């Protein structure tokens, strides 16, 4: 006897649910097979350029990339939260300031095994490689680099009868006094010492050029040392503010952007300004001193050199990307496409430089006629190349850098305001460093 098929309400619901589940699984599997994208995260800079370069990558390789960006100001916090929440990220922009913190938390992996990436080391400045290295391992490939520049107002020096920019910090004082005495500027030297992300770069540039350091090769604090530390640099700043009155005391409330505006308004003769700002300073639409903002080598101290500080932003790789060989290979391709050569040329580095003036760490690009021509429009490419070659990485980048940086910045400001002596300020800074080092 044939069994009669019956469709009860329970059976109907059961079958419907099973069918829906099967369709869902099939759909998900299909999507996974069709495209398991790479996840690429950046801060919100050069977004259009990144998108267009990504489109070319996808077209050439067939690898799909999910691109996301967050504002620079909240990037570290956003990314840390994403890492902790295990959000999918394969490659990302990383600042040298966060490398030890992220590497030691296990959020970044070394790229030494990928010769495609490390092969570029010979064509980039040493400080760039150093800035991407932690505990002897390299963690990425260059995105953009720059250094702290000594910028001067050529027209103002000319009016003051000064023929050449200063070579030493003593000469800066002498020339600034001349400028001030002639009534050309109330505060001839510009420093931005507000508590913000740029502060450490301003301080490090001053210290390196004075022949000092924050820490020694073993990572021990030497900033408090009168000879090899940061005392000479801080004393110079304190004297410049309080004794010579060539720097405004308001430097402690002046941030990098405010400093740029102030220098571009023609109120200063000299300034420590990130080199890439030269383009803005010489743009008539944005600056009153367009054509007169020039770069000189960083003045040197008594036992110092023309050294400055450089910084590095690079493409890092996550453990997620490395876990799967195919994903790792595709991530390396993507990192090279952006940080290295794409179709035989440093396409993205050139694009960034042309469009937004972002500096590059690639030495061969300084010889590229197109790049030289672009640089020549607003800066002395020889000096820029020479100064970049003298740049050094920050010697305080550790997992506890952020916590120490707040105390250090505050100590410098107190010395500048005359609340404590340079020695006391740097002892506070060194004590905090040693405490944090011990705790780590």
């Amino acid at each position, binding site marked *: 006897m044939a069994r009669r098929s019956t469709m009860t309400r329970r059976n109907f619901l059961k079958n419907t649910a099973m069918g829906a589940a099967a369709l869902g699984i099939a759909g998900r599997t299909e999507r996974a097979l069709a495209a398991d994208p790479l996840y690429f995260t950046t801060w919100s800079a050069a977004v259009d350029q990144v998108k267009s370069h990504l489109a070319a990558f996808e077209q050439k390789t067939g690898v799909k990339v999910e691109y996301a960006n967050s504002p620079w100001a909240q990037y570290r916090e956003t990314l*840390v939260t994403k890492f902790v929440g295990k959000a999918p990220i394969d490659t990302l922009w990383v600042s040298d300031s966060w490398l030890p913190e992220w590497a030691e938390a296990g959020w970044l992996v070394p790229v030494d095994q990928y010769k495609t990436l490390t092969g570029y080391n010979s064509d980039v400045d040493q400080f760039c490689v150093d800035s991407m290295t932690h505990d002897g391992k390299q963690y990425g490939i260059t995105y953009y680099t720059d250094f702290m520049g000594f910028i001067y107002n050529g027209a103002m020096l000319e009016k003051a009868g000064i023929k050449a920019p200063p070579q030493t910090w003593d000469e800066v004082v002498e020339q600034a006094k001349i400028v001030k005495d002639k009534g050309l500027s109330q505060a001839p030297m510009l420093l931005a010492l507000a508590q913000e992300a740029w502060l450490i770069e301003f301080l490090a540039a001053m210290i390196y050029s004075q022949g000092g350091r924050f820490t020694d090769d073993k990572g021990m604090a030497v900033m408090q040392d009168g000879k090899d530390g940061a005392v000479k640099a801080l004393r110079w700043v304190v004297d410049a503010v309080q004794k010579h009155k060539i720097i405004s005391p*308001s430097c402690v409330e002046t941030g990098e952007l405010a400093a740029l505006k102030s220098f571009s308004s023609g109120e200063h003769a000299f300034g420590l300004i990130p080199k890439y700002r030269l383009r803005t300073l010489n743009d008539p639409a944005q600056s009153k001193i367009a054509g007169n903002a020039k770069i000189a080598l960083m003045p040197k101290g008594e036992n110092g050199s023309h050294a400055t500080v450089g910084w590095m932003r690079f493409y890092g790789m996550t453990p997620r990307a490395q876990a799967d060989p195919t994903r790792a290979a595709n991530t390396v391709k993507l990192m090279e496409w952006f940080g290295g050569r794409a179709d035989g040329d440093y396409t993205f580095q050139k694009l960034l430089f042309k469009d937004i003036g972002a500096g590059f760490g690639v030495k061969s690009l300084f010889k590229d006629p197109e790049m030289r021509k672009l640089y020549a429009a607003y800066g002395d490419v020889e000096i820029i190349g020479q100064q970049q070659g003298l740049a050094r990485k920050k010697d305080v980048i550790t997992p506890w850098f952020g916590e120490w940086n707040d105390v250090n910045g*505050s100590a410098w400001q107190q010395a500048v305001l005359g609340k404590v002596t340079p020695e006391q300020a740097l002892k506070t800074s060194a004590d905090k460093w040693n405490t944090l080092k011990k705790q780590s």
Partner: protein
Amino acid sequence: MVEIASVSPMSTIAATARRHKAAVRSSYDERSALLFVLPFAIVLFAVAVFPILYSFYISLYSLRLTRPNRVPFVGFGNYVTVLSDPQFWEAVQRTVVFSVMAVAATAIIGLLIALLLNEEFPGRRVLSALLLIPWAIPSVANGLMWKWIYDSNYGALNGALLQLGFINSYMVWLGDANKTLALIANAFVWKEVPLAAILLLVGMKTIPADLYSAAKVDGADAVRRFFHVTLPALGPSFALVMIYETMMAIRHFDLFFLLTEGGPGDASHVVAWRIYVETFRNLSFGTGAAMSYILALATLALAYIVIRMLTRRV
């Protein structure tokens, strides 16, 4: 007894049935009410109660976001660490100084404006409307505006003082550690005074006119009427203003972030700023949560004391 005896058994049954019905309805109404309240209660628990409890739980751990694999339980260790840190007590001192300056100025200026607006004069309504502008401006816009005003290189304050001949050259404002807290308090007062004035004005409107008439008959002049009628009657409004503004001042963060970022030096390192630095810069959620709890408890205690002091007088 007669009355009871006269009640028939049928009517007793009907009354019992009515009571039962009413009880059932009441129980049904309560259940319905609970059901309607439940979604909101769940949301409230999720967005308010749970985070409060969870942040307390976090404060018992050494939770640093950049050290995700090492989160030891430390009990009240974070509280001990915070309370034994001299920098925390310096921040407390600055918070007290800032709060006293800000709340006193807000209350006094608010009271003077309320007294003015309590009088009839031409343009009073326009003035009342204009008064609300600072209060209506978003906190961030307020902070940025004051940053421009105080800027030592191109600020409006220096410009105005120079043109009026009060100064010979531009002065350093926020960069001067001796002036920083007072200048931030000034920006705080500018924004908070309108609310204080309105709350006090509402309080003044509720004072019976008879009291003033009686005081006049007794020969009290305007000053005496203010001290013996207005001020005592304003007790509850004043308590509200003091408590609200004290809480706002103690917890205030926006202006410290926008104007000075805690500087120059540590001149504006108040407790709220330290909580921000510890939590969101150092990503040390354990100590950040402990600091937040200490601040919350201190605010609560202070509010209680202010209420007791001011309401006792009324």
